[in-house]
C-alpha cells in the first residue's frame, strides 16, 4: 500500500499522522428504465408515479435483468481498466426498512460483474496517483423516506426504488482530502465520457461512502469509520478532513476509534455516529433464486470494448503528443468530453492549420474566464469554437495583436454577440497598424516630447517597455507590437 508523501501528512501534537481513505461510489446507471423492472427512472416526477408492481414488491412479482444496465456496467469496467467477470451472480441483502419494499436489496455480493481495475488521478498539475479499483457491482437503489410531513407518520416515495446503481469500490489508496476529491472527480469524468452515469451529484446520481482511518506514517492500518452518502465533491473533502481530525484527536487523547457508520453534517462541519459495529445489520446475503447467474461471452465484451469512446487518459496523451500541449493544459481540456470536443473543433476549424497551443491558451484562459464569470461551461457559452479559431487566426496573420484580440473577445461576449471576429475587426477598424512609416512618426513624436526618458532608456534598456506602451497608446493599440519594438530599437540605437 502506498505511503503518503511528506506533504500529505497531518501534524498532530504527538507527531505526524497519515490519512487512509477508501471509497464506495454509487453511480446511477444512465438508463431510462430500472434494473429489474420496466418502470421509468426520470428524475423529479411526482412521488410514487414511477413504480411498477415489481418495484412495489407486490406478491408474486419477479425481477428481470435490464440488459442495457448490464452493458453499461461492462463498459464502465472497461473504462476503469478492470477485469470483466463473464459470470456474475445476484444476491439478496436482507434488511427491513420502509423504503426497501422487498425487504431485501438485490445486489452482487460474492461474484460482481467487474473485478480489479485502476484509475489514474491527477491531484495537482505535477502529481499523479493510482487508485486501485477492487470491484464494481450492480445493485438496486432503495426508495426515499421523508419524516417531515407529519408529526406521527413517515412518507415513502418509491420512484427511486429499483433504479440501477453501479457500486464502485476503491482500494484504500487515497491519502488526503485532495486526493479523495480528485479521485471522485476523475471517476465522474470517466463515467461521463462513457455516458454510463450522468454524474449529477445534486440529483443523487453519484454519491460516495467514504471510509476514513488514520495511522502513523507507513504503520499498520487504523480502525476505519464509514461516512455514508456524501453527495458533493467539496463535502467529500470536508468529510475526510473533519473525520481525520476527529480520529487524531481521539487517538492523541489516548482513546481508540470505534468502527462505526457516521454521517457528515456539512452545516455543522462534523461527522456524527449513525450506528456502531454492534448495531450493524446481519444482511443474511444469499444468492437470489429469482435470477439466473449473469453470463456472457468474450465476444460480447469485445463488441462493447470496440464501441467505447476515447477515454480521458488516452485523449490527454493524444493532446500532449499531437498538439504539443502541456500535460496540465491537456488534463484541463479533457476533464469534460464536450470541452475536449470544443477544443478540437477550434483547432481544426475550417480545415486550416493553426497553433493548437495558442488555441488551448485562449480556451483555458480568456474563454474559460468568461464562462466561469457567467457560471457556465465553456462549451455552453455562445462563443463557438469557430469564433475562437478565427480570433487565433487574426492574431497569427498579424491582423490584430493579442491585446486587441482580448477586446474583440469582450465584444463577442457583449454587444457584438454572434458576430465573427473578422467582421468585428473590420467594422470597428481594429486592424493592426504595420505601416512602419506611421509608427516611426508616432515614435519620433514621443521621443521629441520626452528627452529625459530617451536618456534613461539608453542607460537602462529595460525602460523600453515604457516607449512600447506610449507608442501603442498613440496608435490606439492598433500598432503591431513587433514593428513598434523594431523601430524603437533602431531609433534608440539599442
Amino acid at each position, binding site marked *: 500500500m502506498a505511503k503518503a508523501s511528506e506533504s500529505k501528512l497531518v501534524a498532530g501534537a504527538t507527531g505526524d499522522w497519515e490519512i487512509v481513505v477508501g471509497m464506495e461510489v454509487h453511480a446511477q446507471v444512465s438508463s431510462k428504465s430500472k434494473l429489474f423492472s420496466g418502470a421509468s427512472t426520470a428524475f423529479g416526477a411526482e412521488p410514487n408515479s414511477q413504480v411498477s408492481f415489481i418495484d412495489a414488491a*407486490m406478491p408474486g412479482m419477479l425481477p428481470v435483468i435490464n440488459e442495457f444496465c448490464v452493458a453499461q456496467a461492462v463498459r464502465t469496467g472497461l473504462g476503469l481498466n478492470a477485469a470483466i467477470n463473464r459470470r456474475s451472480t445476484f444476491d439478496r441483502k436482507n434488511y427491513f426498512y420502509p423504503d426497501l419494499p422487498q425487504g431485501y436489496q438485490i445486489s452482487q455480493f460474492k461474484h460482481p460483474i467487474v473485478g480489479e481495475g485502476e484509475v489514474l488521478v491527477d491531484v495537482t498539475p505535477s502529481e499523479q496517483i493510482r487508485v486501485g479499483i477492487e470491484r464494481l457491482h450492480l445493485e438496486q437503489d432503495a426508495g426515499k423516506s421523508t419524516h417531515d410531513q407529519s408529526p406521527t407518520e413517515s412518507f415513502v416515495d418509491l420512484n427511486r426504488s429499483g433504479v440501477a446503481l453501479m457500486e464502485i469500490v476503491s482500494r484504500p489508496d487515497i491519502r488526503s482530502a485532495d486526493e479523495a476529491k480528485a479521485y471522485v472527480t476523475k471517476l465522474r469524468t470517466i463515467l461521463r465520457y462513457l455516458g454510463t452515469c450522468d454524474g449529477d451529484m445534486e440529483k443523487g446520481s453519484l454519491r460516495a461512502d467514504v471510509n476514513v482511518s488514520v495511522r502513523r506514517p507507513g504503520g499498520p492500518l487504523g480502525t476505519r469509520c464509514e461516512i455514508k452518502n456524501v453527495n458533493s465533491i467539496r463535502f467529500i473533502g470536508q468529510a475526510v478532513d473533519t473525520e481525520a481530525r476527529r480520529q487524531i484527536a481521539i487517538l492523541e487523547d489516548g482513546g481508540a476509534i470505534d468502527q462505526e457508520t457516521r454521517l457528515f453534517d456539512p452545516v455543522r462541519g462534523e461527522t456524527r455516529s449513525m450506528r456502531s459495529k454492534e448495531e450493524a445489520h446481519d444482511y443474511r446475503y444469499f444468492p437470489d433464486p429469482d435470477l439466473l447467474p449473469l453470463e456472457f461471452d468474450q465476444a460480447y465484451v469485445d463488441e462493447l470494448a470496440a464501441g467505447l469512446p476515447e477515454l480521458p487518459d488516452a485523449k490527454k496523451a493524444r493532446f500532449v503528443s499531437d498538439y504539443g500541449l502541456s500535460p496540465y493544459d491537456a488534463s484541463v481540456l479533457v476533464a469534460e468530453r464536450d470541452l475536449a470536443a470544443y477544443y478540437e473543433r477550434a483547432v481544426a476549424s475550417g480545415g486550416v492549420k493553426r497553433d493548437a497551443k495558442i488555441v488551448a491558451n485562449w480556451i483555458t484562459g480568456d474563454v474559460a474566464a468568461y464562462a466561469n464569470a457567467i457560471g457556465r461551461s465553456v462549451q455552453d457559452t455562445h462563443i463557438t469554437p469557430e469564433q475562437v479559431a478565427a480570433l487565433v487566426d487574426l492574431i497569427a496573420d498579424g491582423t490584430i495583436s493579442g491585446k486587441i484580440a482580448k477586446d474583440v473577445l469582450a465584444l463577442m461576449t457583449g454587444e457584438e454577440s454572434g458576430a465573427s471576429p473578422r467582421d468585428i475587426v473590420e467594422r470597428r477598424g481594429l486592424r493592426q497598424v504595420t505601416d512602419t512609416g506611421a509608427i516611426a512618426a508616432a515614435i519620433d513624436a514621443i521621443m521629441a516630447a520626452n528627452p529625459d526618458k530617451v536618456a534613461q532608456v539608453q542607460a537602462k534598456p529595460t525602460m523600453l517597455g515604457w516607449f512600447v506602451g506610449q507608442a501603442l497608446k498613440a496608435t490606439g493599440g492598433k500598432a503591431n507590437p513587433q514593428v513598434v519594438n523594431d523601430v524603437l530599437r533602431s531609433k534608440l540605437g539599442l
Partner: protein
Amino acid sequence: MSDPTSLTLAEARDAVRSKSLSSRELTEAHVAAVAAARPLNAFITETPERALAMADAADARIARGEAGPLEGLPLGIKDLYCTEGVRTTAGSRILDSFVPGYESTVSSQLWRDGAVMLGKLNLDEFAMGSSNETSYHGPAVSPWRRPGSETALVPGGSSGGSAAAVAARLCLGATATDTGGSIRQPAAFTGTVGIKPTYGRCSRWGVVAFASSLDQAGPITRTVRDAAILLRSMAGHDPKDSTSVDLAVPDYEAEVGASVAGKTIGIPRQYRIDGMPAEIDALWAEGVAWLKAAGARIVDIELPHTRYALPAYYIVAPAEASSNLARYDGVRYGLRVPGRDIAEMYGNTRAAGFGPEVRRRIMIGTYVLSAGYYDAYYLKAQKIRTLVRQDFERAFADGVDAILTPATPSAAFAIGEKGGDDPIAMYLNDAFTVTVNLAGLPGIAVPAGLSADKLPLGLQLIGRPFDEGTLFSLAEVIERSAPKTELPSDWWSATAPTR
C-alpha cells in the same frame, strides 16, 4: 344427461365442443356443487358471477367457432395465484384483504384458452404445510372418510383445497403449486392425479412465492389425461420469469395411452424407509408389476443421498421463504397493525399476520442464513442439493427413463392428528417428494389403490428434466391397471344430488 360434474375434464371438453353441453350448464352445475360443498372448506373465495360471465363468453366463442383448448371448462385456482380484481390471500391473514392488480401468467394462459374460474382454493398458509391445517381460513376437509367414520380427514397440503375440490367434483381440475410435494401429496391423499412439472416449465410470475428455487405450478385433476390437457395450457416460457425455460410445450395429451414398452423404470431402494406401512410397500410392488406387464423394464437403482434430502429441504425452503416473506411488512398493502414506531409496527403486523408454522419457518430461515451459521446450514444444504441432483443424473445417464416410488409414506390422516407438538412428524410427509423439487425434476402422483382403511394411496413417477410426456404415458398405465375406485360419495352437501 347425467350430472355434468361427474364428467372428466376431457369428457366435458368434448361435450362442450360438440355443443351437446353448454359451458353455462356445465358451469352452473359446478357453481351449485361449490355452494353446496362449503363444509369441505375447499374454497376461500367463490366467484360464481364471474364464472357464469366467463361461461357465457365461452359459449359465444364456441358459437363463433373460436373454441380454445379449455373452452368453457370450470376450474378452481389455488389462492396462491394472483387473480386480477379477485382477492388473493395465500391462506394468510396478512393478505386477507389483498386484491391484486394483475393476473398470474399461468392463470392468464388458462383464461386465454377459454377456461372458467369458479373461485380461489384453500391452501396451507403461504403453501407451508402438508395438511391444509395452517390456513388462516381453517383446514380444507377431504371428501374421503374411513368407512363408518365421520372423522374429518386432511386432503393433504399445501394444495389441500385443490385436491379436495377436484376429488369432490367441485371443479373439473384445479391449479396447484408444489415446493416440496404440495401437488403430489394431496393428490395421493385424495385419489387424484397431480403433476409437478420440471422447474422452469411453468412461469412463477404472479404466483405468491414460498421458496423460489423450488416452487412450481402444476395441475390436480381426476385423470392423467386431464392433467396432460391442463398442463399444456399452464406451461410455457415467460420472459417475466427469468427462471422459466424457453422450450416448446409438447402435446402432452398425445402421450396419454402411448406404449411404454421398452421404457426403463428405476426402483430406488432408498425409498423403502423405516416404519413404512407394509401396504405402501405392497402398492409399490403392484406398480412395478403393472409397468412390467406393459412392457417396461425394471431396474434397481441407487439414490444414495435421499436420506439427506428432507433436512436439506427444510433449510433451503425456509431460508428462501424468510426472505420472500419480508415484503409482508404492513407498509404498502395487506394487514397493518400499528405500533409506536416502525419496528414495533413491523413486529405487530407480522406477529398478527402470520400463523405459527409460517413464523417458525421464517425463524428457521433467518437463522440458517445468519452470519456464522450460513456455511454450516445453508451452504451445506446447497451441497446436499447438488448431490441429490447428481444421484438422479447418474440414474438417468445409466438409461433410466423414469423412477417409480410411493407418493407418500401413508394414507391421509385425521385433522389435528399430526404436527401439533412435533412439526417434524408433519414434515416427514414430504420424504418421497422433496427430492424431486431439490433436483428440479418432474414428478407425478397417480392413484394406485386403497389402503386397508379404504383411503386412496398414490404412486409417484419421477422423470427426466422436461420429459413430462413419458410421465403421462407411464402414469396412464398405472391408472389403467389399478383397481377401479369410486370417488367418495357426497356426504357433505345438505341436499346431496342423486347420483
